[in-house]
């Protein structure tokens, strides 16, 4: 563990986390607000013997990721909302072919071109599949520059553990803010990674085929059942932050930057005697369903706050169904939220009891 902290932006923390985690292939295409990542990696990656390619499009960069992942090499691409839409084709193929790769989405406002400011409008796209077919990706949502670093670092292990794409769903706020970050000791490259499936050239063994086409009778059904079981096994990776939830009567559920801003509001309201707490999912898939349900079982009520028109609130309601419900406050994209913006909605939810 390196003791020295570095003062960097969230985007740079993602780039550094990837480098330290052994990522050796980066493919990307410029889009605001994540350009610090390819800019940093354009010099840092070749300097350590890695590969940096500025692709002709997000479509191509995600497919380059697919190719590198098929070789069992730690690889990453990063983008922001409209670019990630273009990547969905390759992400679906990677899920279908069970290829490990890390895809970062620094969420900006939409739909369409929207704006370059922060938003959480890509929640559905990230956690419900995004591309075609029945599939899921692990989704990690950082709320600080340290988490940008740590979650990216760990995303590569998760991608290889499950042979699955892993998404980091950040946003313009966490990508553009600057904080001290404690880096970890760089991971050595593991030559055995993916030893039983990766493409290396067949040598003396039988050839390997990495594909998502299953035409024989029942073959796709078998593959999709296998995938479903894999997605269920990802429940073991559930992560969340619970802040002052023990004696809270109302729990605010919020993720990413919004979770962090809401935490400030909760702290302020606590000081004023309101029994409120914060539950911040860090894994958006798998969603911390059991944990929320347990809180509902304790008689707690919920207010979901998101930087969109209401997406994660569906998952909160599914988690607590039959026991409780969740109020919702959506802070619209195109504006930058402050802790004060959440004061009135939380007070209203407390009174709504």
């Amino acid at each position, binding site marked *: 563990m390196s003791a020295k902290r570095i003062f960097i932006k969230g985007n740079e923390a993602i780039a550094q986390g990837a480098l330290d985690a052994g990522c050796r292939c980066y493919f990307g295409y410029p889009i605001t607000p994540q350009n610090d990542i390819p800019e940093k990696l354009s010099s840092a990656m070749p300097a350590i013997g890695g590969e940096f390619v500025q692709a002709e499009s997000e479509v*191509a960069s995600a497919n*380059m990721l*697919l*190719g*590198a992942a098929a*070789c069992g090499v730690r690889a990453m691409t990063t983008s922001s909302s409209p670019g990630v839409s273009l990547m969905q084709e390759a992400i679906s193929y990677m899920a279908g072919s069970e290829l490990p790769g890390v895809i970062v989405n620094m969420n900006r406002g939409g739909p369409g071109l929207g704006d370059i400011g922060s938003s959480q409008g890509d929640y559905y796209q990230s956690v419900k599949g995004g591309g075609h077919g029945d599939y899921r990706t692990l989704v990690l949502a950082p709320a600080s520059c340290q988490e940008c670093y740590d979650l990216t670092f760990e995303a590569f292990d998760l991608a290889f553990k499950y042979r699955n794409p892993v998404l980091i769903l950040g946003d313009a706020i966490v990508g553009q803010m600057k904080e001290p970050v404690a880096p970890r000791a760089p991971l050595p490259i593991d030559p055995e990674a993916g030893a039983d499936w990766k493409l290396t*050239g067949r*040598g003396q063994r039988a050839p390997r*085929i990495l*594909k998502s086409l299953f035409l024989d009778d029942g073959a796709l059904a078998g593959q999709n059942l296998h995938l479903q079981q894999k997605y269920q096994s990802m429940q073991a990776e559930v992560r969340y932050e619970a802040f002052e939830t023990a004696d809270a009567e109302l729990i605010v559920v919020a993720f990413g930057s919004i979770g962090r801003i809401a935490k400030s509001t909760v702290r302020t309201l606590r000081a004023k005697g309101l029994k409120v707490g914060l539950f911040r999912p860090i894994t958006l898939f798998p969603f911390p369903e059991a944990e929320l349900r347990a809180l509902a079982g304790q008689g707690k009520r919920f207010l979901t706050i998101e930087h969109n028109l209401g997406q994660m609130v569906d998952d909160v309601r599914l988690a607590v169904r039959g026991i409780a419900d969740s109020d919702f406050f959506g802070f619209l994209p195109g504006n930058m939220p402050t802790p004060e913006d959440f004061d009135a909605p939380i007070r209203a939810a407390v009174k709504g009891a």
Partner: protein
Amino acid sequence: MQEQLVFDRPDVLADVPTHYCPGCQHGVIHRIVAECLEEFGLVEKTIAVSAIGCSVFIYNYVLVDTVEAPHGRAPAVATGVKRARKDAFVFAYQGDGDLASIGLAEIMHAANRGERISVIFVNNTVYGMTGGQMAPTTMIGQKTTTCPGGRCLEREGGPMHMAEIIATLGGVAYCARTAVNNMKNMAQTKRAIRRAFETQLNDEGFGFVEILATCPTNWKLSPVASNERIGKEMIPEFPLGVFKDAAKEE
């Protein structure tokens, strides 16, 4: 009289019945690719990228490590493979709808970057697996299920000449168009694929071979008539030849 084996199947070709339609020339091209892989001693270090359409099934016949790419993206996938594993020999195998339509950006930019990969481009002027729709290479007047009256220059534009286009790009070391309609052209096809492979092995740049081939089912012609069409109609539109060879320019 004792039989003597004088002509055998390359070991890297699977000993299985073909699923391709009668008269389809994917099998001929697979064989030529297989022969070149064996002659260069590349079988053990090859990673193939299969594309979408009939050509996807190359992995059932050429027994090398293979990854499947989404429609048109094989050159991008191959870029990722080669960048991740520089010691591997990497080739992509694409049809005309795949390469010249949806994948036009990927092929142009991989070629322009001079990716050290080889692309085998099978041009039969039609979408095969999806049932005979118009391709970017469909010829003027050629009837398909989506241009039933024949391709019209004013309405759909003319056929794309990929070998000529690719040859203009800086990163390309070798670019040729061949056919597999007779023994002479098959031999030329093999020479072209060998040279394309060689440019990768010598780190010269991007290698590209466009091969004119049949699709009797979707052309609604017999295998013999299909083969004749290559000589009579396709070659006049898509002239054979070497459009770029870095080795000859020095």
